Structure formats: C-alpha cells, structure tokens
C-alpha cells in the first residue's frame, strides 16, 4: 500500500507526559475512539483474521480496551525505559500471532502495512471524535498529534515508512485503504452487530446482572449506532449499514453530550483512569485505589449479604453440581476467546495477560509461554479425544476432575517466579498487586503490613482455582473478568 520513504523519521523522544496524545488519552471519551479504531482495524483482512483467531476481544472486550489504554500510557511514560519495554513487549506479543485465515490467506501481526493501519486508524479516530465533540483540532495540533502517532510506529517498527510523512498525505492514504484494503470481515461484523448486544458486564457491575442488562439494552444500541454513524461511508456501505434516520444527529448528540459533561463535571470524574477504576476497580491505581478498594470491599460484602438473604432456590442436587461448575469454569476461565473450545490461543491469551500485567522481559515471557505451552500439550494429550487439536466443552467436562497435572504445577511455579520480582521466595503485597491488582484476599488484618505469600500457598491457591474448586478474587480479576 502507500509507501513513503522520502521523509525523515520522527524522534521517539517526543513520546512522553508532555505529548499531545496524552491529553486525549486522559479523557474518558478516548475509549470510544479506541473502539471505533478497532472496528476499522477489524475490517483489515490481516488484522481481522488475527483478531478472530487469537484475540480475546470478543470474549473479553473490556480487557482489550483497558490494555490498549495501558499500552498507550506506558508508551507516554516519563521514563523512556518503561516506553521501550512496552514496545518490546508488544512486538513479542505480535510476533506470536500468525496463521492462515479461513480463506487460506496467511496473516501475520508483524505485517508492516497492517501495523501502520492500526496506528493510522487510531490517529484518524482521535481526530474524528475530537471534531464531533465540537472542538476541531487546528492544523498545528493535528500535525503534532500525527507526528506522535508516527513516532509510535517508529518505536514499534524502527521506522514509519508505511505511514505517509505528513497529515496532508495521510488522508488520501486513509481513503485508499478504506476503498481498496478493507473488507467486510467477520471480526468487524462481530464488533458491529454482536458485541454491544452481549457485552459482558464490567467487573463493578458483575454482581448486578439485571442492572447491567437493563443499562446495556438502552446504552448498547446507542453506542453501537453512534459508532456506526461515525464510520467512513465506504466502510458503512460495505458492512451493509443503512442510513438510519437521525443517526448522525444521534452521534453528534452523544459526543457533544459527553463533551458538555466533561466541561461541567469535575475534571477528575471524566479522566480515563477514574472511569476505568469505576468500571473495573481491580485496575485502579494511585491515590484513588484505596477508595476504589474500599468501594469494592463494600460491594463484595453487599453482594454476599444479598446472596445470603435471598431465599434458597431449591438447592442443586449434589451429583450434577460438580459437572456444572466444571462447565462454568470452562466458559469463564479456560475459553478465553469465547469460541466454545479450548485451544492454544486461549492459553496464550492467559499468558499474554499475565506477561502484560507483570511487565515481563523477554526471558520471563518465554518461560511463561513455555509453561503454558506445556500445559496445553498436557491438556491436549489428556482431553482431546477426537484429535481435532482443541478441547471441547464436553471433552473437558468428562475428564476435568482428573486434572491434577504436573504441567499445571509448573505453570504455577513459573508464575510464582515471575511475580516474585525481588526473588526473595515470597510474594509481597506490592508484588501481589502487580499481578492481581487487588490486595491480598486472605486474612491479613492481624499480622499487619508485612504479610507475604509463600511459594506453597501461592501454588496451592493457583491449583485450587485452576481445578475449578475455589473462586479467588485475584484470579477472577486476572482471568475471568473484563
């Protein structure tokens, strides 16, 4: 596609707290830009295939949005080492994603054109949604932002050759890709037509499914229509999206409304991290974290009370319950991609999430992926009866109870080593937070601050969770929620 090699490369040192992008991604509305950009990305055949086959976007949409925001925040970190580590991690992550799509075409997440499109569509969405909010960027601001996005591409690729050198050249490139490079992919259809209808509740609302589904029933179509209305016309046509009367007005209304809200409400309320903290308390950081932790505690307690006070609904007969809990564990934890099967991409998604949270280096990540790969081999050997390379729900339920496996113990030990950053053979409260983003779940009040997890406790808790025997707030936040 469009290749421009004449211009110089932007300097990656412009990425930092002072970057113009930083002000955008601090605004909670930027989350909408991320989702919109994802639709445009998904319409790219290479990216669409990678999303469908490997990403947990469909099953865990919140996680994908949060992780994108986290990546951008890390890239804009004041410490260049944080930025470089994140870039290296993203590259390693993408290097693991390659395959052949259902039409037999190879895809590869390291493809330079595709990656340029990811960065470009994120830029275009930022500009577009900024314009719709009623405040258009001036030319200089847009230039600056574009330069920063190109710097991100330099950070990832080593050069920005696959994106045009100037904003002026960007728009023809953008239209060209839209016209000739995009397709009506399955990934795009899923995001457009299904995701908002059945988006799982964010962690804070999880105990209130009725509330969430009511809110989703009202807000889902609005957000969905809003996003559809903001898409470029050719994309809309290709996806068979008709012109819904008033949808443009709606789109403007939504964004203008949030724009007004962001002016009227205290600034801290509309900041991305506040929103994330509210939607998913386990991700709250900084000073707000204590408040959010307290809120979450209260909420856990209220939910516990509610369950205890609600009448017993004819308790499940004991014999069916073990199989049912295996079934639920399969759906909530193992099947990360939500396709009804467990295969390598599901376990890779777990490893990816852990590596991202712990900010692992290449070696640590390698060990983690090796351990998960070992577990996958073991699962496949033990459970894949029909030899189709994946484990179905029925295959899992039939043999789940006999899963006390050495490879899983190995995963637990590698995870312990990775979490134990200072290598003192125990997990401190800070190390625990890095992985689970929550405080210790066990009773710590009597022993004060200096409580630590030993290797054996850690391994035991991990195995209990993975056997589906025991829930755990920490592992729930890591592997099932969002």
């Amino acid at each position: 596609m469009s290749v421009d090699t004449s211009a110089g490369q932007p300097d990656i040192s412009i990425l930092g707290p002072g970057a113009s992008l930083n002000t955008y991604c601090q605004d909670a509305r930027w989350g909408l830009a991320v989702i919109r950009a994802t639709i445009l990305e998904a319409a790219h055949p290479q990216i669409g295939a990678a999303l469908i086959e490997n990403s947990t976007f469909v099953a865990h949409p919140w996680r994908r949005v949060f992780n994108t925001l986290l990546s951008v925040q890390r890239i804009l970190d004041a410490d260049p080492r944080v930025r470089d580590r994140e870039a290296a991690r993203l590259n390693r992550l993408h290097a693991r994603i390659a395959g052949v799509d259902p039409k037999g075409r190879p895809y590869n997440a390291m493809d330079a054109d595709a990656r340029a499109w990811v960065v470009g569509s994120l830029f275009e969405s930022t500009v577009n949604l900024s314009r719709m909010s009623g405040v258009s960027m001036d030319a200089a601001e847009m230039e600056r932002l574009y330069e920063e996005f190109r710097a991100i591409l330099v950070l990832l690729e080593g050069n920005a050759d696959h994106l045009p050198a100037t904003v002026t050249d960007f728009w023809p490139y953008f239209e060209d890709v839209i016209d000739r490079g995009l397709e009506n992919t399955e990934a795009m259809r899923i995001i457009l037509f299904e995701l908002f209808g059945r988006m799982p509740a964010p962690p804070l609302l999880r105990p209130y499914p009725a509330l969430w589904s009511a809110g989703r029933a009202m807000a889902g179509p609005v957000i969905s229509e809003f996003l559809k209305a903001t898409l470029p016309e050719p994309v809309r046509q290709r996806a068979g999206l008709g012109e819904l009367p008033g949808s443009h007005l709606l789109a403007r209304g939504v964004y203008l409304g949030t724009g007004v809200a962001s002016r009227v409400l205290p600034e801290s309320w509309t900041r991305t991290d506040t929103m994330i903290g509210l939607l998913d308390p386990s991700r709250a950081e900084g000073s707000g974290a204590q408040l959010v932790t307290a809120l979450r505690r209260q909420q856990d307690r209220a939910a516990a009370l509610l369950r205890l006070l609600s009448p017993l609904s004819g308790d499940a007969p004991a014999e069916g319950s073990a199989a049912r809990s295996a079934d639920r564990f399969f759906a909530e934890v193992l099947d990360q991609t939500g396709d009804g099967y467990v295969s390598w991409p599901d376990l890779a998604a777990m490893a990816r999430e852990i590596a991202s949270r712990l900010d692992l280096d290449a070696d640590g990540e390698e060990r983690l992926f090796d351990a998960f790969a070992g577990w996958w081999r073991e699962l496949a050997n033990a459970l894949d009866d029909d030899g189709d390379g994946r484990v179905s729900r029925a295959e899992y339920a039939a043999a789940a109870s006999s899963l006390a496996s050495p490879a899983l113990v190995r995963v637990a030990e590698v995870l312990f080593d990775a979490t134990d950053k200072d290598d003192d053979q125990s997990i401190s409260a800070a190390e625990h937070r890095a992985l689970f983003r929550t405080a210790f779940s066990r009773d710590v009040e009597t022993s004060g601050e200096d409580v630590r997890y030993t290797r054996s406790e850690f391994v035991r808790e991990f195995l209990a969770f993975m056997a589906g025997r025991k829930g755990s707030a920490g592992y729930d936040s890591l592997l099932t929620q969002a």
Partner: protein
Amino acid sequence: MNPKGSDTRASVPRHVACVMDGNGRWARQRRLPRTAGHRAAEAAVIDVIEAARAAGVRWLSLYAFSTENWRRPSDEIDFLMGLVRRTLRKHALSMCARGIRCRFLGVSDPRIPPGLARDIADLVELTRGNRGMTLTIAFDHGGRRDIVEAARALIRDRVPADQVTEESFARYLPHPDTPDVDLVIRTSGEQRISNFMLWQVAYAEWVFPEVLWPDFRAEHFSECLHVYRNRERRFGGVRPRFPDLDPELTDPLVKGSR
C-alpha cells in the same frame, strides 16, 4: 515453663473450643431419628455463641464436621449439609450485626455442595471486617490433615530442616493468627480428642460435661468456664502452685478421674 508467657490463671480463657458430641444419643433417647438430634443442636450452638461473647471469650471454635464424618450414611450427610446451609443463612445477618468474625477451618472436600461452599465464602466475606469475637467453625476438619498440609508447604518452600521450629511450623497451619486453645469442652461425657485441632490443643484444659450437646446451654458453658478458672494451668511444669488442690476433685462436671 509457660510457652505462651501469659497469666497461668487467666480468669477468662482466650480461646474456647467445643466438640459438639451427643446429637445422635439425644435423638435415640427420645426415639427420634438421628437427624432430629442435629436439628436440635442448632439452638445450643446459638446459645453458646452468645454465652461466649457475653463472657468475654475472644475466640470460639466449634467442631461441626470432621474429615471422618464423611463415612456416615449419605442420607445423614445430605441432611447435615442442608442443615448447615440453612442455619448459616438464618444467622448470617445477626452474626454480622453482633460484630462476630466467622471463619472456617477445613472446607476443602469437593463433596461439599457448591451452594454451601458459596454461602460459606459469603459469610466469611460479610464478617471479615468484624472485630468482636472470632468464631471458627471446623467443618470438614482433620487435625492430622492440617499438620500434614503444613509439612508439605514447608517442604515446597524448601525451608531448611534446622529452621523448622514450633513457631515457624505453626505459621504454616491454617489461620496462623489463631491463639492456642485454652479450654476444650466435649459434651456427652466422651473423652477423646477425635483428631480435633491437634496442634492448637497442646496445652488446653479439657472438660467433659455429661450433658448431651442439644441440651447444652449458656449455664453449662458458664460452669465449664468456672471449672477452667479453678484449674491450675501448668503448661508442662512439674510443680503445681497449689499442690493440695487437685482440680479433678473439685470439678463437678468431670466424669470420674483419668
């Protein structure tokens, strides 16, 4: 020698544990099914919790179900699981309101119905922040199993043999912040330990009132505390401070002498 370094004549025991024995016999005496005995036990449990709290006991442990109890007929087990669940739900709110922190010891067998396991977790969560009495319910508990688990954990942590001391070992037991048991009450006159909190009862005083658990009430509990107060706790020391006062002779509740 006093490993706890505490007053040997504390007026109120810090940690009291009850082995709730005699439900079956209570029912048999009344020509009722065994399940009726279990049902009648609920009133005693609630009474004792309130009595302990009123007396200023900070830690109360109740032996509700042992790892050996799984050998009972499956009908009785099903009934017990249902009863525990109903009782727990019935009293959850009042436990919380009275500032009682509820904990469970054991609860690891997959045969525990998921609904009950969920309720147990909810009760623990609900009362976690309470700072009144701590009520530990030993459910699916086995003292030997806890010790074996602790040993396993030590080995997994690669703790060198010479660093294993009583103190460090105790930290590997479940709920390591629980103090040693001062007084064990086993109702119905049976005099056995039955694999109950083996490590924690090392220096405990035992009383064996004849009364069957469903009949055990606050006044019986007070009598047991009284017996405890009149006992000389020696913690393995050779010379009692009041050699002329043999506690066993003054215990009205003690059946015979050992």
